């Protein structure tokens, strides 16, 4: 028997993230690089540790290789502790049947034994596709204060955008009376952040009931939460103020990176009281050469910058050659932008090479048809041939040599 843990966090990291296209072809969404040195999963993991939650189960399913390797023993997040720590929980065989995780609720259901070992009072369910800093312990305190069975974190969104979110309609005391999934006419602006606190014994009961229902799609939002509400359980909305961004699409991932460059931005990762931890590359400090111009940018270790960068996020070990220009773009670890190449409004994946004089992406003002504009994406280990042109919003496959538009 392991010592009791008051809170266990379960992190749903099995999502395919198909809307991120080539970025998640060989990579689970939570392992997608972000912000010059992080991966998305660093945010919920660091939030857990900073909130004092030291037992975390990470539910993986889609392309887990790199994610598993990244999490490893959990040491970078101080989650290699003796009794709790981080545990990667893939689906497994039992008896004669073996099940993939059928839905978010089913993923937790299949790991009831894992949670029971710690005999927790509360379970925090998190997802691996949001960028935010949040103290979960305050949310659990709120949950206790309200004597709730389930507490859902919500963020105030503009009314005009409310119809894109799962909206919670609440009474004056913040108790929830209705879930409104992507409502055409929103009654409130409280959008669910996909962060739930449950009283474990209650959740356990509903998970077992949900599993027994053959018609259920075993999803928290579609099944378990509505069932709890209909049964009259105490459910509350916890209002969160601060930066929160879903990075489920190319555009939102690009925006979330650019938000870090905004001097008045609300996401400040330099604060030492709420650090975001990550696995750090072993590389020398960056070198900015004579003749380089670096402005409004984030640059990680091991980079060599000889060209011009403006509004750029450079990950570890990126090389920007003399005369190369990078604007409003994200360059992932180990990528190279060679002489005279121009990268604008683009995401360049790991170890890609943009050869001499190639051009990737374009500025919205340079696009004749504004509707065709979008962020260009180059897959990992891809080479853009010298002089080739990758137009806006084009996604170049992984590992190929792209030669279109070469003069």
């Amino acid at each position, binding site marked *: 028997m392991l010592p009791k843990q008051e809170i266990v966090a379960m992190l749903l990291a099995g999502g395919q993230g198909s809307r991120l296209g080539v970025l998640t072809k060989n990579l689970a969404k939570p392992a997608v690089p972000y*912000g*010059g*040195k992080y991966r998305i999963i660093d945010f919920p993991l660091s939030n857990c540790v900073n909130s004092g939650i030291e037992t975390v189960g990470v539910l993986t399913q889609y392309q887990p290789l790199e994610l598993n390797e990244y999490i490893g023993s959990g*040491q*970078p997040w101080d989650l290699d502790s003796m009794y709790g720590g981080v545990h990667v929980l893939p689906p497994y065989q039992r008896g004669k049947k073996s099940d993939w995780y059928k839905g978010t609720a089913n993923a937790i259901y299949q790991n009831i034994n894992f949670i029971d070992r710690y005999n927790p009072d509360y379970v925090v369910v998190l997802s691996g596709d949001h960028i935010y800093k949040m103290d979960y312990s305050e949310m659990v305190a709120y949950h206790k204060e309200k004597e709730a069975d389930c507490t859902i974190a919500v963020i105030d969104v503009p009314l005009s955008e409310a119809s894109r979110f799962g909206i919670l309609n609440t009474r004056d005391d913040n108790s929830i009376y209705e879930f409104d999934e992507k409502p055409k006419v929103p009654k409130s602006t409280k959008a669910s952040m996909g962060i739930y606190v449950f009283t474990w014994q209650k959740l356990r009961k509903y998970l077992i009931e949900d599993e027994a229902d053959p018609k259920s799609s075993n999803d928290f939002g579609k099944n378990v939460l509505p069932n709890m509400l209909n049964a009259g359980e105490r459910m509350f909305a916890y209002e969160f103020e601060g930066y929160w961004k879903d990075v489920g699409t190319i555009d939102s991932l690009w925006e979330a990176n650019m938000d870090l*460059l905004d*001097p008045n931005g609300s996401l400040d*990762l*330099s604060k030492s009281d709420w*650090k*975001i*931890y*990550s696995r*750090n590359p*072993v*590389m*020398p*400090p*960056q*070198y*900015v*050469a*004579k*003749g*380089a*111009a*670096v*402005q*409004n*940018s*984030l*640059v*990680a*270790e091991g980079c060599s910058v000889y060209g011009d960068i403006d509004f750029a*996020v*450079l990950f570890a070990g990126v090389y920007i050659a003399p005369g190369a220009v990078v604007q409003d773009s994200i360059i992932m670890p180990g990528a190279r932008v060679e002489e005279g190449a121009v990268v604008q409004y683009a995401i360049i994946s790991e170890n890609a090479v943009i050869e001499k004089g190639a051009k990737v992406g374009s500025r919205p003002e340079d696009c004749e048809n504004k509707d065709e504009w979008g962020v260009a994406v180059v897959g990992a280990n891809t080479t853009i041939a010298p002089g080739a042109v990758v137009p806006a919003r084009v996604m170049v496959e992984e590992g190929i040599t792209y030669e279109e538009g070469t003069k």
Partner: protein
Amino acid sequence: MRANNMLGVLFSNEHDEKIHQLTEKRAMGSVPFGGRYRLIDFPLSNMVNSGINKVGVITKNNYQSLMDHLGSGKAWDLSRKREGLFILPPFGGASAVPNSRVEYLASITRFLHNSREEYIVLSDCDMVCNIDYRDVLAFHLEKGADITLVYRMGEIPEGSSDPTVYTLAPDGRVLEMLINPAVKGTCNHGMSILVMKREKLISMVQDCVSRNMFSFKQDFLQRNIRECKIYGYEFKGTVQTICSMNSYFAANMLLMDPKVRAELFNPNRPIYTKVRDDMPARYGLDAKVSGSIIADGCVIEGTVENCVLFRGVKVGKGAKLENCVIMQDTEIGENCCLNNVVVDKDVRIQNERSLMGSQSYPVYISKGAVV
């Protein structure tokens, strides 16, 4: 490749007095260098990259910051059940703080006895280089040497403490060893790196102690030059000796040279250091940076030319830095003007300040100062 047959021993305090400004509050090994490192990172990483997985670090005084830096040794992959990192503070009571290298080695006899490795590598922390000790050991074995000393050919760096100069036979055997001779120009001078059999070291140290002879260079090496087969191994790579404030400043500035960086930061033999989890460096709207080494966690809004900025340095708007070495977490206020200045960590330079040193005599601002 791990687990070859070598044990590493590092002297973290040797030559502290040479840069007394920087070592007032720390050991030589924990002097910050090159944007994100401490001097000990270089020999320690060299040892790990050479397959050594047991390293003892001998400390004498002011080793708090060194201990803080090394921690469990995890960052060097030396936090392990079998072998790993051993910090060896003075042993044997307050009355017996050792003073010489022979005494240090005598004081860690138990550690040396309890080790299983056949060979031992000794090194100081005041040489910045990327060397593979496996090559030295291979040379040592090929020559059938008792002791192999690593040397390099060139001029003796100005200010070196008691440099040793070797006369070598064509096969590399050391025929003569001079300590602090009046030689000018190119010569073969020692790098304070030595490879020999562990058992042999223990018995030679005991022999010195039993004769009340405690000088490593005179009594341990020079005295035995006929009896023992002492060979010299030439290291041909870049070495920077930190033996004065000027050489410290110059060594940092040399990192702007791509060749030096490529050699020192060889990706196959990376230099490890303590992890700080800083965010990547952030360049503001009016940042102008050229020819500089910048570490993570920096926030730059001013002009930086030919500088080394350590982790977490902040440069305010309108500030202008030229030829400076700025250590961790120092904040440079708005519109400051700094030229040829070495600023230690946690310093605050208030707005509008102006500090000028010269290339041959950089101004030094000590740790935690407010200017």
